[in-house]
Structure formats: C-alpha cells, structure tokens
C-alpha cells in the first residue's frame, strides 16, 4: 500500500501547475465554507447580543400568562423568594426588576399609545443597554422621580425635547381606574428598533408601581447570565427551577422565537452553502482526476500489464484523490484562517440594518472555532475520496490493452 501513497504524492507534484490550480480551487471552496461559517456565527452572536442586550435580557421571569395578556395584575408570585434565590445563582451575573403597562402619553402638541416601563436605573444599566441608547439628556441621573426617558421617534411625534412636560395615563391594577401623572422628559433614547423608539417610555420602578397600583410587585425580572450559552440552552435546569409557583422562566429562544427561527435559518443556509460549495468542489475533483487519468492512460495500462490488480489501480487513484485533498486542505485552511482573521480584525458594518426583528447595532466579527479547521477539512477529505471512487472504478475497469492503445 505504501507504494501507492508514494506514487500518488509524487504524481501530485508531477504537473505542479494543474495540482496547484485544482488544490487552490478546492481549497478556496473550503476557505469559503470556513469563512461563511465564522461569519454566520459572528452574525448570530451579534443578533443575539443585539436582541438580548438592548432590552430583553438573556432570560426573563414572569407570572405565567403575562406575556400573552400583558395584564397589570399578573405580577410575579413570591417575588422576595425569587429575588433571594436569583442572588444565590452562580450562573446569574445581573438581574433587574421591571413593571410595564400600556397607556397613553400626551404633550401639548400630540398624544400616542405607549408602553410605560418602570425600571431600576442601576440594575437596568447592568442588564440592558437602555442607558447606552441615550442620545440626549441623561439616564435617570437626578433624584427626581418624575423623570421620564422616551424614544426619539416618540419625542418627535409629541414634539417634545428635554425638560418638556408630558402626561401619562394608565389604568390601575384591580380597580381599572385611570391614573394620570405628569413627567418631565429627562432623556431621549434611540435603539434603531422602531417599536422601542416610537412606543416605549421608561420611568423609575417605584413611581411605576405606584401609578399602576401594584406596590412591591413586578411583572418581569430580566436576567443576564455569566455566559452567553445559558440563555440559549433550553434544557438548562434553571428554567424549570424558576417556573414554579405560577411563574415561568424563559430564555431568549422562547422570548424571541422569531430570532431563534432566523438563527435556525442561518444554520440551514450554512448547510446549503456547504452543499453547493462541496458540489462544485466535487466536480472539480472528478475533472482533475480524469484529466490526470487520461494524461497517464499508458502508465495505467503498463501498471496493469506488469501485474497490478484492478483494485490496485483503484487504490492508486484514491490515494491521488487523498493527496490532492491534503494539498487542498493545507491551502484551504491557510486561506480560510488568513481571510477570517483579517475580517475578524476589521469587522463588517451592518449597523442599523434590521433582520428578523433585530437591528444590528455593532460591527459583525467572524468567529473562528477549531471545529471549522477540523470538521470541514475532514468533510473535504472524505468528499474527495468519495468522488474519487468514480474515476478509480473507471481506471480499475480499463482493459490494459485499451489503456495502452488509447494513449498511443
């Protein structure tokens, strides 16, 4: 068998230009796959980060049914116990409490429907990026509990700026009575997410609890974990542990199911791109092997004439396919590494572009993983061997006399 490896490896360098071109073509396919995979991982992480870090958090706890009804009465059961347990969770880095209610906001010039969210500024800043989204004013910097932070589009609609007064009208829990409160605009945010910029307003938690009529209760606990993998892990025992006592704990894959679907689509896209690339590569390999075979037809005839068994000739062709694969993998991994590393340093700017309900807010950086340089090359090698079977069988079936005659 060793002689076939030796022959195959040396034959590879017999026509250096052709081997290099074929190897580069296959290698480019591999490099493209490595880069695409790295880019999609980077894009997915960016989307998850954009979706979860903007406001959602990586996980949330609510009263069961709150997400569907948005009922003001549906506050978290056993809040003190839940908070005490969360403080002890080793995988929870930060969490923040929120209340939310639909209402109306009006200014001297206009009015609009709004989702009024009561937040704890200190813990909110640790979990979400509401504070970072401030484009004018400040994020609850003073002690005034009549400060309100509104989205930029909402500010435009209401024709208000910093320091202007707005009136918020909401219905109280249980009684359903309307409650009105005047606030002064202390900050304006821009998330580049239409729903948030045009339909959300933030006030302090205590004030919100007061006007919603739910003192000491909250609707939502938003969580940031110590690792990004926890939020997407639907089998994490954490969810079950906090889905007790009428509450439900959900990761971002459940809270933002359209994003999960988009990411699944990305995975499928990678598979599709891989299949197309490998299909093209496969044709290239078959072509190269057949070119080599026809060019050396006489040699194969001689090898058969001197006693090489048909399977021996097939083994030689497969070894040549393997040698070509090794060369291609070396080239592909190198090109893939260089391109991914270079783009990973610069980043790709998609900021402001919205996809699957998520707006990219930061540069996308491709993420290299060892798997890309092991699994995809292994596929390439395997594919090369598999597609090499066709020319190998063809060569094995050649009559020695025909092989010798064809090349004369």
């Amino acid at each position, binding site marked *: 068998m060793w002689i076939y490896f030796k022959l195959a490896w040396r034959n590879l360098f017999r026509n250096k230009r052709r081997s290099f071109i074929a190897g580069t073509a296959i290698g480019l396919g591999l490099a493209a796959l490595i880069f695409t995979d790295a880019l999609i991982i980077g894009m997915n992480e960016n989307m998850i980060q954009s979706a979860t870090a903007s406001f959602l958090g990586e996980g949330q706890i609510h009263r069961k049914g709150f997400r569907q009804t948005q009922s003001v009465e549906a506050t978290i059961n056993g809040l003190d116990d839940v908070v005490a347990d969360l403080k002890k969770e080793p995988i929870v880095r930060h969490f923040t409490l929120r209340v939310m209610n639909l209402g109306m906001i009006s200014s001297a010039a206009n009015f609009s429907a709004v989702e009024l969210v009561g937040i704890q500024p200190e813990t909110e800043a640790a979990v979400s990026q509401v504070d970072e989204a401030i484009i004018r004013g400040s994020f609850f910097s003073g002690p005034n509990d009549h400060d309100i932070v509104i989205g930029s589009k909402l500010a435009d609609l209401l024709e208000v700026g910093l320091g202007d007064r707005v009136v918020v009208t909401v219905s109280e829990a249980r009684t359903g009575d309307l409650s009105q409160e005047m606030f002064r605009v202390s900050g304006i945010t821009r998330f580049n997410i239409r729903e948030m910029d045009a339909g959300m307003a933030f006030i302090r938690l205590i004030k919100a609890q007061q006007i919603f009529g739910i003192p000491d209760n909250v609707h939502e606990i938003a969580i940031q974990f110590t690792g990004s993998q926890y939020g997407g892990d639907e089998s994490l025992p954490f969810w079950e542990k906090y889905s007790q006592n009428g509450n439900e704990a959900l990761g971002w894959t459940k809270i933002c199911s359209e994003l999960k679907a988009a990411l699944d689509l990305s995975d499928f896209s990678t598979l599709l791109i891989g299949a197309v690339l490998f299909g093209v590569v496969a044709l290239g390999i078959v072509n190269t092997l057949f070119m080599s075979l026809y060019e050396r037809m006489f040699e194969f005839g001689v090898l058969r004439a001197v006693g090489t068994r*048909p399977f021996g000739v097939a083994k030689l062709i497969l070894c040549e396919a393997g040698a070509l694969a090794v060369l291609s993998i070396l080239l592909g991994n190198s090109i893939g590494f260089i391109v991914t590393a270079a783009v990973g340093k610069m980043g790709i700017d998609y900021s402001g572009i919205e996809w699957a309900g998520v707006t990219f807010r930061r540069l996308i950086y491709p993420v290299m993983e060892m798997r890309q340089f092991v699994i995809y090359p292994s596929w390439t090698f395997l594919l090369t061997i598999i597609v090499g079977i066709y020319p190998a069988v063809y060569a094995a079936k050649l*009559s020695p006399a025909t092989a010798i005659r064809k090349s004369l």
Partner: protein
Amino acid sequence: MVTSEYDTIIETKAISKTYSENGVPVHALTHVDLTIRRGEFTAIVGPSGSGKTTLLNVISGLDTPTSGEVWLSGELLSAMSGRRLSDFRRDHIGFIFQAYNLIPVLSVEENIDYIMLLQGVPKTERHRRVADILKQVGLAGYENRRPPKLSGGQQQRVAVARAMVSKPSLILADEPTANLDSKTGAGLLDMMRELNRQTGMTFIFSTHDELVIRKARRLVTLQDGTIVHDEARS
C-alpha cells in the same frame, strides 16, 4: 505440431480478434494457431497493421480474443478472473514496450522493485535482485536516477531489467528497439540474447527492425492478421 506440456509455453488455438473502429469491424487476427516453446527467441514480423501488437496483447492476456483459446504455461487465459490474470502476468510475463514506459515519478530502483513489491518479495531480497539485474544491464550506480534523467537506451535497459527481475518465464517485447539508434539497439539485443541463453527465458518480439529479425532464432510473419510464414533458424 505436437509438443509436450513442458516444452510448450504458449499455444494459441484459432484465435481471432475483431475490433470495431467507428462502427466498422476490423479483423486484427484471423484464426491464428501458434505454438512457442520454452527458451525460444522469436520475432513476429509484418507490416504495420498486420496484427503483431494485437497478437502479443492476446498472448499475454492484456486483451481477449474474439474467438479461440490462448494457453500459457498450460493454463487457459480465458478461464482466469481479472485478479488471477493480473497475478499470472505479474509472476510469468515480463513486458518491454516501445516507449520504455517506466513510471517517471519512481527512481530506477523503484521501477524495477515495483513488480517484486507486488509479489511480496522481502526487502533485502528485492534489493539484492535489483542490484544484480542493474549490473547485468550495465546500469549499476543508476539506482536513484529518475527515468527522465536517462537516455532512451538507458531507459529501455531499465525496462528490460524490470521485465526480467521477477524471473518470468516469458518476455514479450513490442518494438523494443524502435526508439533507439542502431548501436544502442544492437547492444540491447545482444544483452537480451545473452540473457536468453543464460536463463532460458522465452523472448517474443514484435518488430520491423532488421537487426532484431537477424538475431531472432525463429521468425513468424503476419500479414492481415494471419500467419503467412513461420521459419525456425539454427
């Protein structure tokens, strides 16, 4: 002709070979009966297209006859599987082709070594036999050269060495001197004749070369795929 099992190495019985060329049948061989005894030094001659190469191919099992039988060392070739036929060629037949046909990516030693490797000959024995045969063909010291670095005559000597190293009982040479100058060709023929005398190997040449024809101990003339003359010489 009646020959004993031990004397006869090749016996063809009414072999015919018809090719189809662009849909037109070409009768390369027609009812050829030929018996070759062990140790003969035979030349098959005839004009181009007379069927010389086809006859060698059919005799060696490289090609199959359309009809008729080929017996080699008492075995019917058509009864052998592809794998068995490969092994049989490896162990019993040495080939020398017109265009040398060495594997260019293998060194002289590796080219000669290849058949013994297929036979499973131990490394030390292979090494010894390569050294011996290279000495016999006058190429000692050329072990590590690659064929493209050798002259035509040297390459053909390597081809002879490769054909003989496994000690086959039959050497088939298709126009072995066609690409050589007359001096080199004569030297090569003398060498093969000497090996024929020393080892008793059977040599069959297909040739146009007058030099080969003069040296041959038997001359078989083919014309239009039929033996028209068969002459033994002293």
